[in-house]
C-alpha cells in the first residue's frame, strides 16, 4: 500500500484557450486533511474532477489510492460534487441505499447503516419522504450522507459548506472531523479561507490553475509571520515613546485604532510582549497572526503593483464567494 492517497504529477488541463489546471504537482498522504483554497475560478473544481476521473488531463499523471485512476477505486472514494442534487422523486432512505449500493456497500449492512446515519444528522423522521419534500438544508445533509455512507477511504468534498447556515455548518464540520478521526483521507475545497483555517491541517492554495502554496497551516503561519504585535493602551492618550525604545522593536505604527509594533527578525515575541505590558498599561496585547486570507493576498499580489481596489475585490471573493463570473463550473467546449 502506498503512503500517498493522491498523487498528481505535472497535471495540465485546458479548455480551449483557457488553462484550467497548469502543471499541478500534489501529494496527499493517507489520513491527511487537506484544504484546497483559492477564489472562484482558480481551478479547484477542475482539479477535483481530474482526480475523480470525471475529466481527463491533457498531460500529467494521476494516482488515486494506489490506482492509476479513480475509476479503479471508485467504491473506496466518497465524492461530494459542488454541483450536487438528489433524485427528487426518490425516497430518502431508498436514495441513500441506491447510492451506497452503487458504491459496492452490502445491502444487509445498509439496512442498519442508513437509519443510523439519518439519526445522527437528526433526520430520522424523513427516511420515508421524497427528496423533493426536504428543505434545502436537509437535502444538503442527505447529499453529505450519500458521500460517506459507504465508509470511503478517501473523501473529496467540493465546497461542502456553501449555502449552509451556521448550525448546519458546525454539524457538517464535526462530521468531517469524525471521518478524519476514523482514518479517512479528506480533501475539501473552499473559497472561504476561514473554513480551511478552522479544519485543515494542510493547505493547498491554487490560483489561475497553478499551485501557489502547499504546506501545513502552522508551517504557513510561521513562514508568513509578519512579526508584529497588536497593542492597545488602556489610556488612549498614553505616551508610547517607551515602546519604541524597547530592545528588538523596529517601529510602532498606528493601525485601525490600535498600534502595530514590528519586531526585528529572530525575536521571541512573548518576551517582547512582557516588556510592552510592563512599559505601558495595556487594554489588549496580541500576536498579530496572519490569516490565510492575508497570506493568499500577499502571495497573489506579491511584489506586483496591485491597486487597493483589486486587493479589496480579491478579499471579498475570498470571504463570500465573490464574483459570479469567476467560476469554471462549466466545462467550456
Amino acid at each position: 500500500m502506498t503512503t500517498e492517497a493522491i498523487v498528481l504529477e505535472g497535471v495540465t488541463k485546458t479548455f480551449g484557450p483557457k488553462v484550467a489546471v497548469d502543471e499541478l504537482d500534489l501529494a496527499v498522504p493517507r489520513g491527511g486533511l487537506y484544504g484546497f483554497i483559492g477564489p472562484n475560478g482558480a481551478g479547484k473544481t477542475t482539479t477535483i474532477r481530474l482526480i475523480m476521473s470525471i475529466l481527463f488531463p491533457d498531460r500529467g499523471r494521476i494516482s488515486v489510492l494506489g490506482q492509476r485512476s479513480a475509476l479503479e477505486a471508485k467504491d473506496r472514494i466518497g465524492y461530494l460534487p459542488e454541483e450536487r442534487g438528489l433524485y427528487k422523486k426518490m425516497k430518502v432512505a431508498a436514495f441513500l441505499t441506491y447510492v451506497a449500493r452503487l458504491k459496492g456497500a452490502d445491502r444487509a449492512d445498509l439496512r442498519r447503516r442508513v437509519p443510523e446515519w439519518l439519526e445522527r444528522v437528526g433526520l430520522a423522521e424523513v427516511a420515508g419522504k421524497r427528496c423533493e419534500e426536504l428543505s434545502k438544508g436537509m437535502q444538503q445533509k442527505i447529499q453529505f450522507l450519500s458521500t460517506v455512507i459507504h465508509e470511503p477511504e478517501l473523501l473529496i468534498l467540493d465546497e461542502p459548506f456553501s449555502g449552509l447556515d451556521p448550525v448546519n455548518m458546525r454539524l457538517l464540520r464535526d462530521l468531517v472531523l469524525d471521518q478524519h478521526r476514523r482514518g479517512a483521507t479528506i480533501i475539501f475545497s473552499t473559497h472561504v479561507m476561514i473554513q480551511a483555517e478552522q479544519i485543515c491541517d494542510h493547505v493547498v492554495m491554487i490560483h489561475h490553475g497553478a499551485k501557489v502554496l502547499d504546506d501545513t497551516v502552522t508551517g504557513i503561519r510561521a513562514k508568513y509571520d509578519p512579526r508584529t504585535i497588536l497593542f492597545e493602551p488602556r489610556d488612549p492618550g498614553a505616551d508610547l515613546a517607551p515602546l519604541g525604545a524597547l530592545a528588538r522593536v523596529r517601529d510602532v505604527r498606528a493601525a485601525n485604532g490600535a498600534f502595530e509594533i514590528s519586531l526585528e527578525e529572530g525575536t521571541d515575541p512573548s518576551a517582547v510582549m512582557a516588556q510592552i505590558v510592563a512599559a505601558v498599561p495595556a487594554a489588549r496585547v496580541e500576536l498579530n497572526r496572519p490569516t490565510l486570507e492575508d497570506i493568499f493576498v500577499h502571495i497573489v499580489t506579491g511584489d506586483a503593483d496591485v491597486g487597493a481596489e483589486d486587493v479589496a475585490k480579491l478579499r471579498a471573493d475570498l470571504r463570500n464567494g465573490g464574483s459570479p463570473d469567476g467560476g469554471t463550473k462549466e466545462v467550456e467546449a
Partner: protein
Amino acid sequence: MNKILQIAIREFVATVATKAFLIGLVIIPVVLLIAIVGMRTLFDETAPRIEGEVAMIDPTGEVFAGLYEYLQPEAMAERRDDFKEKMEEQLPEGLELVAGTPMAEEARRQALEVLLGEVPRLDVVELDPGGDLERAKDPLRRGNATQGGRLALVVVHDDAVVQAEGRETYGKYDLFVRSKLDDRIEREIRGGMVDSIVDVRVRRAGLDRETIESLTRVGRVRSTTVTEEGEKQTNEVLNMLLPLAFIVLLFVSVLSGGQGLMTSTIEEKSSRVVELMLSAVSPMQLMAGKILGQMCVGFVFLGVYGGMSIAALMSFALLGMVDVSLLFYLVIFYFIAYFVIASLMGSVGAAVNEPREAQGLMAPIMMTLMIPWLLWMPISRDPDSMFAVVTSFLPPINPFVMLIRMSSTSPPPLWQVWVSIAIGVAAAYGALWFAGKVFRIGLLMYGKPPNFRTLIRWVRMA
C-alpha cells in the same frame, strides 16, 4: 455489470411506478376505442328523426305514389336493416360467427325496433300541378328544418317518365329544400325519386323491373387466398391494417422508451445529481444502465399492446392471419429501432439542460420517425418496389419499413430481412457509440444548449 443492472432497475422502477406511466399505458387503447366508437357515430349515414312535409308537384301523375311508398317509416327502417345485413356480410369470418349467434339475432331484432323509432316521419303530399310554384315554395322560406312544416318541394318535369317528342333522353325533376335541411333527408328524397321514376319508366316500357334488376346484378365476390396450408377468404381490410398495426406497435414502444430515456437524463442533469452518479459509475455505465432500464419500459408497452392485439385477434379467431414468426421479428426490430432511436434521444437529453431546449434537437429525430407513417400506404401496396427495398435497408427507418414489407401481402425474401437486421445492428452500434461520446461530454456541460454541429464536435473531442 452489477452497477449497470442496478441503474437499469432504478431507471425502470422510477419510470414504471408513476401515475403518468400507467395513464400513458391505458391512454392509447382508450383513444383508439373512442376513435372507433366515435367514428361510427360521427359518420352515421342514417337520417335523423325529423317530422315534416315533403310536397310534390307531379304533372305526370305517376311518380308521386312511388315516393310516397319509399318515404314511409317502415320502408325506411327496412332499408336500414338491409344495409346492416350487407355490412355484416363484409365482416371477417370470425365476426360473422359472433353475429350469427341467437344472442346476436335477438340484439338485431331489438335494434330494428329501435331503428323504427328513429326514422324520420315524413308526410308526403301532392300539390295541384296547375298551382303557383312560388306559393308552393313559400312555406320553405319560413321556419327551419327542425320545426316540422314543409321540408322540401319536388317538381317533376313533364318528360320525366315519357320522352318528349323527338328526344332520346328523359326529363328529370327539380328539388327545392328549405335552408339547413339535413343532407341525409335530402338523400332519402333523391333516392325515392330515382326509385319511383325508374319504376314508372320501366313499367311504361312494358318491362319488369325485377327482371331487369336480376339481369343487371352480379353479386360481390370475395377472393380466396390459396396457400400451401389451405385456402381462406382474403381479408383486404386486415391485409391493409396488419402492417399498420406493426408499425404502430413498434413506434409506440420505441418512442415511449426513448422519451423516457431523454426525460430522465435531462432530469438527472437539471437536478445536478449526475455528478454524484459519475463518482460511482462511468458515463458509459450510467448510459448503458439507463438505456437498458428504458428498453424494459418500452418492452412493457410492446408486451401489453402486442398481447392485447393478439388477444383481440384470437377472440375473433383471426390469429391465423398473422404469421407467428412475424412476432419474433417484431421483437428483434424493436431492439434495433430502440437502440438507434433511444441512443439519439438519450444524447439529446445529455446535451441540454431542460426539456424545452430539447425541442430543437428532437425535431429531426421526430421527423425521421414520421417517415414510416408516410410510407405505410405505398409500401404495403407495393412491397417489392425498388423504393420499398431500398428504404428497408436504410437506417434508422429500416426496422419500420421491413416490418411493413414482412407483414404485407408479398413478404420479402429472408436474406433481405437478415441483411436489414445486420444493417440495423450496425446502426444501433454506431448510435450507441455516438451517445456514449455525447454522454461523456454533455452530462457535465451546462449553459447554452448545443446544436447538432456542436454535438458532432463533442463526439470528435471525446
